């Protein structure tokens, strides 16, 4: 088996055995989203207006919850040392771990998002762009988050530091993700926004693994 599939298979198996971690992320996403109708009021047209933005913001925060454990556990128990010493390509290990993170947190968020959109009265034509934007945008969330997660390894209160590092970088995803939903609900085409999100994903895909690997090498020193 290649390095990628070996690490991916192990991380997926661990995530399934410790499924509480993934469920926490989904539960946070659901609860945080459902708070908005209570806070903003039940008026359907106001909720419909903010639905896209609310779902994206809560999805980003939910993903952030899981990110600080992405490398921290492996760092604390010495697995990262051994991975660095395995003589295998570290960026490939990183890509595998990020893929596993996306499959176990990003995908569940995408799956549950239409149900939550229902509670926010999202107009019917907004569902498809919401799902597509999440599908293209959440891998970037995991990829950028991985760089931050590797940089804060070994620091105290790394989770808080991580949000300072990573959340500003999520702003482009948030803008274009929300814009895709809004464009569709106001009767305009949403493909340009998806293209931008796709471009961001490709950019993150090419840079993130190497940056993360470099940060991991720093951390294990």
């Amino acid at each position, binding site marked *: *088996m290649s390095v990628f599939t*070996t*690490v991916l298979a192990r991380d997926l198996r661990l995530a399934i055995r410790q499924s509480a971690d993934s469920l926490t992320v989904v539960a946070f996403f659901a609860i945080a989203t459902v708070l908005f109708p209570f806070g903003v009021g039940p008026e359907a047209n106001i909720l419909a207006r903010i639905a896209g933005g609310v779902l994206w913001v809560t999805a980003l925060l939910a993903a952030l919850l899981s990110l600080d454990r992405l490398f921290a556990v492996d760092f604390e128990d010495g697995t990262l040392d051994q991975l660095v010493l395995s003589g295998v390509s570290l960026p490939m290990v990183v890509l595998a771990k990020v893929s596993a993170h996306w499959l176990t947190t990003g995908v569940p968020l995408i799956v549950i998002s239409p149900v939550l959109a229902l509670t926010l009265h999202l107009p019917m034509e907004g569902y498809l762009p919401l799902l597509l934007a999440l599908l293209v945008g959440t891998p970037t969330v995991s990829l950028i988050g991985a760089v931050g997660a590797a940089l804060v390894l070994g620091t105290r209160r790394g989770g808080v530091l991580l949000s300072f590092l990573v959340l500003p970088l999520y702003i482009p995803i948030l803008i274009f993700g929300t814009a895709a939903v809004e464009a569709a609900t106001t009767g305009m085409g949403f493909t340009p926004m998806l293209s931008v999100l796709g471009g961001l994903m490709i950019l993150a895909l090419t840079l993130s693994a190497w940056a993360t690997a470099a940060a991991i090498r720093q951390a294990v020193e």
Partner: protein
Amino acid sequence: MPCTPGKNLKEINSTTWILLCYGPPMVGENFTAQEFSGSGLACRRGGRLVFEGLQFAVPRGGALVLRGANGSGKTTLLRLMAGLTPAAAGQLAWNGAPVEDAEQHAASLRFISHLDAIKPALTVTENLNFWAALWGGGQIPHALQMLGLGHLAAYPARLLSAGQRHRLALARLLVAPAPLWLLDEPGNALDDSSLAALTQAIADHRARGGMVIVASHGAAFVSDGNTLDLGTFAPTNTAHWSDT
């Protein structure tokens, strides 16, 4: 030739099998590296010079025991030898040629530290399988047998005792061959029979041309290795506390 209890197992009797397992290793998998050495090594941790001017050389089949008080830099030196920690000065060399490709260097060593890299949610076999797949090995039943973990193969690693966890970490040495073993206090938490198994594993490894560098306070695990006392490489005065 590694002992792989597989389909051939039925055809040979158990005595033969034990001989195959624990008998002298055959010529085929001998290691070829002639020497692993370091010269002029210095290491700085948090602005403090831990040691300087350190030299060592381990010949093929040789062993080196690192001694020194707590904080004298045994673990730091092992991490430096592994390539995890960069040296402030000096260099490591294989057969006299300086180490340049970090990945290639990493692939020719196994490092056992006090961090065991064991996932409690995976079974004993799954834990080893992962590293065997990554390193291209596959002698898992043999490795587990050797360290007395055979009967626990299907157990989740979270149920293991401290000593058993450590034995599982040590089993990584045996799943895929690598010429250089770096062992940091490998005797911690081990019972007598495990200590004997580890001593035997080290002897086997050296017999086929492997090298062992072990940091240890207590048992040395090697009968005839050289000893390196880190105390003699400690910086001589406090001027090294500078933040340069």
